């Protein structure tokens, strides 16, 4: 808080001024009168000091007010004060900032005329409360009431012997100003609203001990508004107003009201609503509101007839019927009977309120029409003056009543037919407003049959027209339904049921679009048709005894909005337009629509198939009930990690497959999502592993085989065509042997009977059983005839074995030994005794080598057996050089590297001692043999050849039977081509 500025008027300075003034205006002293009889009058509550004096003719005076104790100037000004003609005194009022009790004040006055002044008057002192005689602590002002925003100065006079400590405004310590030895002042500026019990200002000593205190109340002056005076009894007046802003002042500091200068006994009727009554209507009213902070005046004026506020009707009662009722009541004041009134009746029924107005002189009753039967009503009545209407009066007490029952309204009947001539007659349940009372039951009559009664909760009855439909006759049956209640029966309601179903699907089904309130439907006007229409709807996937909704449309209309609270999102509805004639209803048009399309509730069933290097996706159809919207197509995705990448969109609903091409071998996961206008479903996912395409490999093999077959056929054909050349080139005629002895030229078996003493001495090897692996000589006839050979006979038998040869293969050339080192062999004796046959062109197949190198790696002992059989001795290794030697080719060493032979036994001698092979041992399908055959080309050109194809065939060749068969076939082919 700012300190009050202290004027620096010292007594010395003041004295100088006064002396100067006296000297300068010495001549004026004779003119100006020194003020006399200065008197003081203080109003402590307003802190106003009234100063009066006798001042002569002067009109201007210098006033100086000083705090007596400290001689501080509080006020020093020149004021113009006119003399009061009655008292002859001058009077001037001064309001002190500080309470006048705070300290003593000294007042002096002098007259002034321009620059001339009189001497000062005697000093008058206003005694403060800080005199030593008043030793107790005090605080001023007490119980001050201040407006919000004002500033107030408080002073504390500390008790004798006490030391000032501080002054707190509420909880805030203030900056003090010392007014005297014991008096201190503080100023609270811009004060805010105090509490209800005021704001405490506390003065404490230097020990913070409470010395004294005061309370200040900060509030507002009164500010009422909306003064209105009305009459209720047409005689007196009741004035009301609103208190407005709260003053924050209560009880004895609160606002007081006076109406037309009469204290008003205020009663608070509502929140801040106050009223005051006046016994007679005066026409003009003045309301004065006063509190310690100010006053406010409101006025109102009106004629009595313009301010009628009727009282509430009393004793409200009623007379009730089914469709109407009469209300009556009484008025509290008889003067109302001559007053033109307008009354308002508020009806409350089923939660809805309606108001109806009635008027009349002294209105006491009203007739309420258009009520509904069997319905509860609650009514209230209020009235106002019909002329110069001012306001509705008070509401009466509410009255409740219930109207009487009445016969029900006619039913709205329709039907549903199944495909098998069964169906239902259905009707809409009557609302409370339509039933006019509790329903007691329904009576349904099919044409020409007895009525059937049904309980009140029945809204459909089954019908079976199978017999009627087959009996022929009329094409419809009429069903009639009436409803009963306590008041009677309704008008009958009928529906025509077709005996022959004509519910043929129209050519096109339109789509109906829901617009928020319903399906707006439009159809073509048929000028010839004077019938009404029935618009029916049901869920599209329903097929049997469906729940049907319908509305009837008057003739001439060509549009309607189908609205139903039963429409559900995601359900497709069939909406049909029927003509409603005296005949059976006829389907005119059909729509389909959704109230709200949703995404499909289920996904398609997806399957994947690999087609070549492509993947075929196929999926099934979503059932109608699960589509929940018009399908717009399918989106095909492939999974890439956790994301789906759109591959394709299939907008064609008829197509439920898609081929994904250009994929590499990998695992794929495809997702197909059907979508409607609401979006996609969750999707069906299928995985597939794209594998290499093996069909091509198979095709290549087949093609190779085919080409080979064709080549063989061509070769065969060429060989057949050139068989002479082939025969000449590969199979030339072998000249018959010419014997010097003149052997018979006749052909036939040549029996060779070894001499009895020409036994073969078998040289046994201890590690090898020659009896099992002996090479036997198989006569060609035996093979052809009974398949028996010599192998069955022991080689060392005493019985002479007979070897048969075709004699035409005898070579005329002298026989020469092939191996000079075998001359010592005993076979030479055999040579001389038998036909010497030279084989020069016999081919040796690879299999013969196999024979030579059996799996056990044994030496081809067959040579020994053969030789033994042929009379050739020579056991032992490398001793196979005796006897006949066919044109066997030595195998290249490279061919033998793969054979499991522990010993290198491919000395020329050993190789040449291999088994014998007939010439037919060709293996065209063996590339090895082909090579060998190439290697044998020089020998093919040998002029000598033996035509035998089954000569000296070892057992080991049986495993090559298929090749041997082919060779046999080829050999036979060649044989067959012999001339």
């Amino acid at each position, binding site marked *: 808080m700012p300190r009050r500025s202290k004027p620096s008027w010292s007594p010395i300075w003041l004295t100088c001024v006064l002396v100067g003034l006296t000297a300068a205006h010495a001549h004026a002293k004779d003119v100006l009168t020194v003020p006399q009889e200065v008197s003081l009058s203080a109003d402590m509550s307003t802190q106003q000091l009234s100063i009066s004096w006798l001042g002569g003719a002067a009109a201007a005076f210098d006033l100086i007010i000083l705090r007596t104790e400290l001689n501080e100037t509080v006020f020093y000004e020149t004021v113009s004060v006119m003399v009061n003609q009655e008292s002859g005194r001058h009077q001037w009022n001064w309001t002190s900032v500080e309470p006048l009790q705070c300290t003593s004040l000294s007042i002096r006055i002098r007259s002034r005329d321009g620059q001339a002044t009189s001497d000062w008057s005697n000093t008058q002192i206003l005694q403060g409360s800080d005199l030593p005689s008043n030793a107790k602590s005090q605080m001023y002002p*007490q119980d001050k009431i201040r407006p919000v925003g004002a500033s107030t100065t408080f002073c504390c006079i500390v008790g004798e012997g006490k030391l000032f400590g501080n002054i707190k405004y509420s909880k805030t310590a203030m900056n003090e100003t010392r007014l005297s030895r014991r008096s201190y002042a503080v100023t609270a500026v811009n004060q805010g609203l105090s509490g*209800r*019990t005021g704001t*405490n200002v506390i003065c404490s000593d230097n020990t913070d001990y409470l010395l004294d*205190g*005061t*309370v200040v109340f900060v509030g507002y002056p009164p500010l009422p508004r909306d003064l209105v005076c009305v009459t209720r009894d047409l005689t007196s007046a009741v004035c009301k107003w609103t208190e407005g802003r709260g003053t924050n002042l209560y*009880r*004895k500091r609160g606002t007081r009201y006076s109406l037309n200068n009469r204290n008003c006994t205020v009663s608070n009727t509502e929140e801040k609503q106050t009223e005051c009554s006046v016994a007679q209507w005066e026409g003009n009213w003045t309301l004065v509101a006063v509190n310690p902070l100010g006053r406010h005046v409101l006025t109102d004026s009106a004629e009595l007839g313009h301010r009628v506020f009727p009282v509430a009707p009393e004793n409200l009662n009623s007379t009730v019927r089914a469709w109407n009722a009469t209300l009556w009541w009484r008025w509290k004041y008889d003067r109302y009977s001559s007053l033109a009134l307008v009354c308002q009746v508020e009806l409350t029924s089923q939660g809805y309120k309606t108001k109806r107005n009635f008027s009349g002189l002294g209105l006491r009753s009203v007739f309420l029409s258009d009520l509904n039967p069997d319905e509860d009503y609650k009514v209230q009545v209020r009235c106002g003056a019909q002329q110069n209407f001012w306001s509705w009066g008070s509401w009466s007490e509410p009255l409740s009543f219930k109207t009487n029952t009445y016969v029900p309204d006619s039913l709205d009947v329709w039907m549903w037919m199944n495909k098998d001539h069964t169906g239902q007659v259905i009707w809409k349940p009557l609302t409370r407003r339509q039933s006019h009372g509790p329903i007691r039951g329904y009576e349904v009559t099919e044409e020409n049959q007895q009525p059937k009664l049904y309980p009140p909760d029945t809204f459909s009855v089954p019908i079976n027209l199978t017999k009627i439909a087959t009996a022929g006759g009329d094409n419809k049956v009429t069903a009639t339904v009436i409803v009963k209640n306590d008041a009677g029966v309704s008008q009958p309601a009928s529906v025509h049921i077709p005996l022959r179903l004509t519910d043929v699907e129209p050519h096109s089904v339109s789509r109906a679009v829901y617009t928020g309130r319903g399906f707006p439907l439009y159809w073509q006007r048929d000028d010839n048709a004077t019938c009404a229409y029935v618009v029916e709807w049901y869920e599209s996937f329903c097929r049997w005894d469906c729940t049907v909704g319908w509305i009837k449309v008057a003739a001439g209309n060509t549009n309607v909005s189908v609205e139903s609270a039963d429409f559900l999102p995601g359900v497709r509805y069939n909406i049909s337009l029927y003509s409603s004639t005296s005949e059976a209803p006829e389907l005119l048009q059909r729509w389909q629509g959704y109230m709200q399309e949703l995404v499909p509730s289920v996904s398609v069933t997806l399957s994947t198939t690999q087609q070549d290097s492509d993947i075929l996706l196929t999926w099934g159809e979503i059932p109608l009930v699960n589509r929940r919207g018009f399908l717009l197509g399918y989106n095909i995705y492939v999974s890439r990690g956790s994301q789906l990448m759109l591959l394709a969109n299939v907008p064609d609903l008829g197509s439920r497959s898609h081929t994904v091409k250009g994929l590499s071998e990998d695992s794929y996961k495809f997702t197909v999502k059907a979508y409607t206008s609401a979006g996609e479903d969750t999707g069906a996912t299928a995985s597939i592993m794209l594998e290499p395409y093996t069909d091509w490999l198979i095709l290549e093999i087949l093609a190779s085989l085919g080409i080979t077959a064709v080549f063989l056929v061509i070769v065969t054909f060429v060989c057949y065509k050139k068989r002479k050349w082939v025969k000449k080139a590969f199979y030339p005629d072998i000249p018959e042997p010419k014997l010097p002895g003149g052997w018979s030229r006749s052909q036939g078996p040549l029996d060779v009977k070894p001499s009895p003493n020409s036994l073969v001495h078998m040289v046994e090897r201890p590690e090898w059983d020659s009896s099992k692996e002996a090479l036997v000589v198989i006569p060609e006839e035996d093979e052809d005839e009974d398949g028996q050979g010599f192998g069955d006979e022991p080689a060392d038998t005493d019985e002479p074995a007979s070897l048969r040869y075709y004699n035409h293969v005898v070579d005329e050339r002298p026989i020469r030994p092939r191996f000079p080192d075998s001359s010592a062999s005993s076979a030479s004796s055999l040579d001389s005794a038998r036909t010497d046959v030279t084989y020069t062109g016999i081919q040796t197949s690879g299999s013969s080598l196999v024979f030579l190198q059996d799996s056990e790696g044994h030496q081809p002992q067959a040579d020994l057996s053969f030789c033994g059989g042929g009379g050739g001795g020579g056991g032992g290794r490398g001793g196979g050089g005796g006897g006949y030697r066919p044109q066997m080719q030595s195998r290249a060493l490279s061919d033998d590297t793969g054979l499991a032979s522990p010993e290198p036994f491919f000395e020329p001698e050993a190789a040449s001692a291999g088994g014998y092979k007939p010439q037919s041992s060709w293996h065209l399908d063996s590339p090895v043999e082909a090579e060998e055959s190439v290697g044998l080309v020089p020998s093919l050109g040998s002029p000598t050849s033996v035509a035998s194809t089954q000569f000296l065939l070892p057992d080991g060749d049986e495993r090559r039977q298929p090749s041997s068969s082919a060779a046999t076939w080829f050999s036979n082919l060649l044989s067959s081509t012999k001339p």
Partner: protein
Amino acid sequence: MAEQEEPQITAPDTPVPGPSQTGRAVALARLLHHECARLLQLYKEKETFFSDHTPDAGRIVSLSPDTEEPSTEQQVQLLHSALRQCLGLIHCVILKEEEEWGEMEGDYETMRMNVRLRLEHLLCSTKGLVETESMILEVTPDHQCNEETDGAGGVFGLKMWTYRVLLELVHWADHAAQTLHVLYAEREGTEDV
């Protein structure tokens, strides 16, 4: 501070005589002391300047025993007299405050009413304890409420006086609890209530 749950106060009735009547009076006095202390605390919270103030004025209610060493029953009779004056003071506080600011419904006003009713109840209890045929005790307030309040008679004086009355109530409620406990110990032969 949260308001504590207090038992429902009903109109004072005649205490049921019996061995536990003194004990009930002790408990009632202790409850009154607790409520008076709570009332003083609420007042300090409302009128902040009294938070640490101890008035230097003497007791409002003072007693002058007839004998220098009164018996316990006599002390209770004196206590009864002091409590009647306290009841008169709290009646006067309520009257003056409502005159000044009207009826209010705060915690302070609620507790103020509780103390008044509890004090009336305690007076009935002490009357039943020590009343004799020769010593008829009254339970009506012994205060006319016409004396000037402290200071200059302004609102601040009323607040100061109210504060002193509340201190007086705390003092005499405590005194009642102690005196009645002595009586209880004498009559029941035990210190435990």
